[in-house]
């Protein structure tokens, strides 16, 4: 390819995307040369966001976000931290009256391409190894990021990269793990070529406009491809047929944690917290400051970390660096030194290492950022309800009797309906359960994308959640599904979604004949009816539906208990237990009676699995409908001739599942089981042992001990009377008095 050099009017500054040393050197070089125009490697749409990135209210890390308006999943992040060369360059340009333009492929093309495989250079890795470093990252860190003197740095990077690229690159194209979609697939090598062609096109344009001093800021890798320009026609050929997609752009908060993933240009940073320290401090101070922060973290955790140890750690890090012939300790030397002197315990190290190396910083964006309406509505609500977006996992305890907490709960429930899992509810047990909610809340940057996706449902959280619920109600075919949705809609207080969901619930409940489905729909509906008043929801509309479902369930259950295999019987047994629990919750005599009848019918049903039968009898017992004598009688019947030992064991399993006290206090039942076990032949005993053992294993330890004592004949069902020899007991009294300091009798 015939090329012409870019000439003196253009200077190329090859950087590393999140490199503090790159940033420092870049600013010094810009200050030195005073360019009038800055061309930055970044999608064209980013240009419009630059004023926002310069807003004083913006706190990095943030990411510029480009997304396809019709398919928000197709998104491109451009993360920026305080020490990003790009962000520093934007700031410098604003201060010095220098123009800024973007030169990479526009988002409209970027988002329409699906890149397959990746491209990397083995040469770099080999060079790093030859220089005595563990990997490229560490090598680059020492060469560039920890360097203080920017003099001729960019010339050096230029020639280094030219040398490496001449040696060729290796593309890995064998694995195609990109998601299947209608986007155009393209190999990593072609994609790179396109981007570089586009950047050259941008350079040609600004040259044609007659600018005199143009600073090009790009990833170091691209420098060789941009310093000589082929003809415009050649680049046009490469750029033919780019897709055109409608693009939305905004700025979202980012986190250090996210930065460690490769995103955007595939350039992550392994150690953002350490890089931040490199940026903020004088290089000579970095080891001391880093090791001091180790000591502080240790002291926070109540572990020893004396200043003397820190001094020794600094000395060791220096000695290590000297041995490896590096000008000053890097992260590796610091970690090794800390682990040799300050932290000996692997567990402690793994606890604090992440905070030391990656850090926990979460960015903030100014309110003026153009957001999709849904995002700005959420931001407004978050502000009103004083709920900060935070990337650490926190426990939020809400008391639903308070107005503020109720609204917070509703917001979280609405977001969950929209698949924006900011909060994960945790089960609250005990008395507090009725009006308390516990949430684990953690904001992850990718939730922004989920929100943008949810934006198709509406412009506010309420309207979007309402529409989303209505749509899901329309599509629902299972009763349990719609029942859960009704519950969600009611606790999220979506007034306008109640009608369509409840209507659908009624429609489905009238036609559904699947017993499993009916049974599974009960818990959410029962929860709605039971807790409705606390949440001030319209529970009364659900109650009649619940009654109807319950009646249908009672009618349909006995026939459904026939001809079950072992697994199905276990499911059915669990189902009976669950429904029983709900009936207790209702506290309604009529329904309770209805349920008793159903259980009685199942218990004496011909052809019903014995596990289910046993369970039904036990549930009846728990309700107080039958007594221990009855259970013993039934066990006798079920274990009499005709039943195999296996079947009897299944019956016993159903009967005894749950607290084992029943066995302790029901003497007839205990005796019946004991007799049955003792009467088994050796062969049958071997057969049922696993089953019986499983049953007993579920009892608590004290229960098992007591049962064991009963069997051994030590504990009687009647109270044991302790015989006390008073004469002998009296003899110790004087000594006890003496110990307690009491006067003698």
């Amino acid at each position: 390819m015939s090329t012409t050099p870019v000439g003196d009017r253009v200077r190329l500054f090859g950087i590393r995307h999140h490199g503090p040393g790159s940033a420092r050197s870049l600013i010094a070089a810009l200050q030195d040369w005073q360019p009038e125009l800055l061309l930055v490697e970044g999608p064209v749409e980013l240009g419009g966001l630059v004023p926002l990135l310069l807003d004083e209210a913006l706190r990095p890390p943030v990411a510029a976000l480009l997304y396809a308006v019709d398919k928000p999943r197709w998104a491109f992040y451009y993360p920026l931290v305080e020490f990003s060369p790009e962000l520093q360059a934007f700031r410098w340009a604003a201060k010095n009256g220098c123009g800024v333009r973007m030169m990479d492929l526009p988002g409209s093309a970027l988002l329409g391409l699906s890149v397959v495989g990746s491209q990397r250079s083995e040469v770099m890795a080999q060079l790093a190894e030859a220089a005595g470093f563990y990997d490229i990252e560490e090598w680059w860190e020492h060469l560039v990021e920890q360097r203080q003197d920017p003099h001729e740095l960019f010339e050096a990077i230029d020639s280094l990269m030219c040398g490496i690229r001449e040696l060729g690159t290796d593309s890995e194209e064998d694995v195609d793990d990109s998601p299947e979609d209608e986007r155009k697939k393209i190999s990593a090598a072609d994609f790179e070529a396109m981007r570089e062609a586009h950047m050259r096109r941008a350079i040609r344009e600004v040259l044609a406009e007659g600018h005199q001093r143009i600073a090009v800021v790009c990833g170091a890798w691209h420098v060789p491809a941009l310093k000589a320009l082929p003809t415009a026609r050649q680049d046009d050929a490469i750029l033919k047929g780019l897709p055109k997609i409608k693009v939305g752009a905004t700025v979202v908060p980012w986190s250090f944690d996210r930065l460690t993933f490769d995103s955007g240009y595939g350039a992550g940073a392994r150690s953002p917290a350490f890089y931040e320290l490199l940026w903020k401090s004088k290089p000579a101070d970095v080891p001391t400051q880093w090791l001091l922060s180790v000591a502080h973290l240790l002291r926070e955790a109540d572990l020893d970390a004396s200043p003397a140890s820190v001094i020794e750690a600094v000395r060791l890090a220096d000695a290590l660096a000297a041995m490896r012939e590096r000008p000053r300790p890097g992260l590796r030397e610091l970690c090794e030194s800390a682990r040799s002197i300050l932290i000996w315990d692997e567990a402690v190290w793994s606890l604090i290492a992440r905070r030391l190396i990656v850090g926990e910083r979460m960015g903030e964006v100014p309110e003026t950022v153009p957001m999709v309406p849904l995002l700005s509505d959420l931001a407004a609500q978050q502000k009103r309800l004083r709920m900060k977006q935070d990337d650490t996992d926190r426990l939020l305890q809400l008391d639903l009797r308070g107005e503020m907490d109720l609204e917070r709960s509703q917001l979280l429930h609405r977001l969950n309906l929209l698949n924006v899992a900011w909060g994960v509810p945790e089960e609250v047990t005990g008395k507090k359960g009725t009006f308390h909610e516990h949430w684990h809340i953690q904001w992850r940057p990718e939730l922004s994308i989920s929100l943008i996706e949810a934006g198709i449902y509406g412009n506010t959280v309420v309207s979007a959640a309402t529409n989303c619920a209505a749509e899901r109600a329309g599509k629902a075919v299972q009763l349990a599904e719609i029942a859960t949705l009704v519950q969600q809609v009611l606790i999220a207080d979506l007034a306008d979604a109640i009608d369509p969901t409840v209507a659908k619930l009624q429609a489905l409940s009238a036609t559904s004949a699947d017993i499993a489905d009916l049974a599974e729909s009960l818990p959410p509906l029962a929860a709605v009816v039971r807790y409705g008043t606390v949440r001030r929801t319209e529970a009364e509309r659900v109650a009649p539906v619940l009654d109807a479902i319950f009646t249908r369930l009672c009618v349909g259950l006995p026939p459904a208990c026939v001809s079950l295999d072992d697994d199905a019987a276990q499911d059915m047994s669990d189902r009976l237990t669950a429904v029983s629990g709900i009936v207790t919750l209702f506290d309604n005599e009529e329904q309770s009676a209805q349920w008793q009848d159903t259980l009685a019918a199942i218990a004496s049903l011909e052809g019903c699995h014995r596990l289910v039968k046993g369970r039904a009898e036990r549930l009846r017992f728990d309700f107080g409908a039958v007594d221990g004598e009855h259970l013993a009688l039934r066990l006798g019947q079920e274990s009499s001739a005709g039943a195999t030992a296996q079947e009897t064991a299944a019956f016993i399993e159903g009967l005894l599942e749950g607290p084992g006290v029943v066995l302790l206090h029901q003497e007839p039942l205990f005796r019946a089981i004991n007799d049955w076990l003792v009467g088994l032949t050796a062969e049958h005993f071997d057969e049922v042992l696993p089953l019986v053992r499983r049953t007993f294993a579920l009892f608590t330890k004290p229960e098992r001990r007591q049962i064991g004592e009963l069997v051994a004949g030590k504990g009687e069902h009647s109270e044991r009377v302790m015989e006390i020899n008073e004469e002998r007991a009296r003899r110790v009294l004087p000594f006890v008095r003496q110990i307690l300091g009491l006067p003698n009798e």
Partner: protein
Amino acid sequence: MKPNILREHAENAFRHELEELSKNDDRPRPPNWKLSPWAVATYILGGDLPNGFHVTPKYIGKRSLVEVAVATLATDRALLLLGVPGTAKTWLAEHLAAATSADSTLLIQGTSGTSEETLRYGWNYAKLLSEGPSRAALVPSPIMRAMEGGKIARVEELTRIPSDVQDALITVLSEKTLPIPELNDEVQAEKGFNVIATANDRDRGVNELSSALRRRFNTVHLPLPETLDEEVAIVQQRSEQIGRALELPAEAPSLKDIQRLVTVFRELRDGMTLDRKTKLKVPSGTLSTAEAISVLNNGLAMAAHFGDGRLRVSDMASGLASAVLKDATQDGIAWKEYLETVVKERDDWKDLYRACRQLL
């Protein structure tokens, strides 16, 4: 050098390498060091010198561990090597002492009977009675001699020494002086003095390391070999060296035999086969690399003296079993299970299975 010595000190056994390193070493040396820290690391880890001379590796494992250890000695902080038995703690300590001060003999073996006199100084009582207290009547400990000569002293099995006796080291390590109150005198350490201690963190019945003392040490934790290849290399190299030292006429064991042996050790140690498909019972012994080496040497000796000079599986089997079976009943079960479920199933391990089976 005496010709009939069973085991040479490191500084004699590798004298040639140390001399070559010294010749090629133009980096700055800390006072009283025979080599620069860089050259010490090269001596331990092996490498090629600019003049083409090949230095054999003494320690096979993570480079950074050795670098931390050498850098520690260079900062005049004491070094504590910690690890389970058989992870080359003593071996590494000896070679570090040999390379830095060309003297690995200043050694104190820690036992529960070690007294303060052993760590500091004792008295020649005949002289003490006849002449009264004087420097001439004083018997210096290895530590004291190391202080006077600016050399490295070694303390083996530090945690076997009773805690109150351990504390005698505190003044030495922090003040670098050893007071002799009886003579109203003291010994001040020359530059280059340092202490390397080893301790194992597996055995029970070991004294705690007092935290005051611990703060005066930089700790380097020596792990068991990470990969099969690494461990095979260690076993192969050491057994060759020892075999040569014992003048065993047997042929060197084949790589395949060593791999098999190391595989057995690793699998039993991890409680899992190498392909991670089968779980195994873990025997009570450590099954360290050092034991694998001794099993192999035992086998070589058997082959040389009782066999035809070629290492056969049967020569190794008895050593292998005795390494595994530390507790007769429990380890017996683990060993038998391993033989039946793993060794028997491997096609090319049939001979090993038969040999081990015969001994049960």
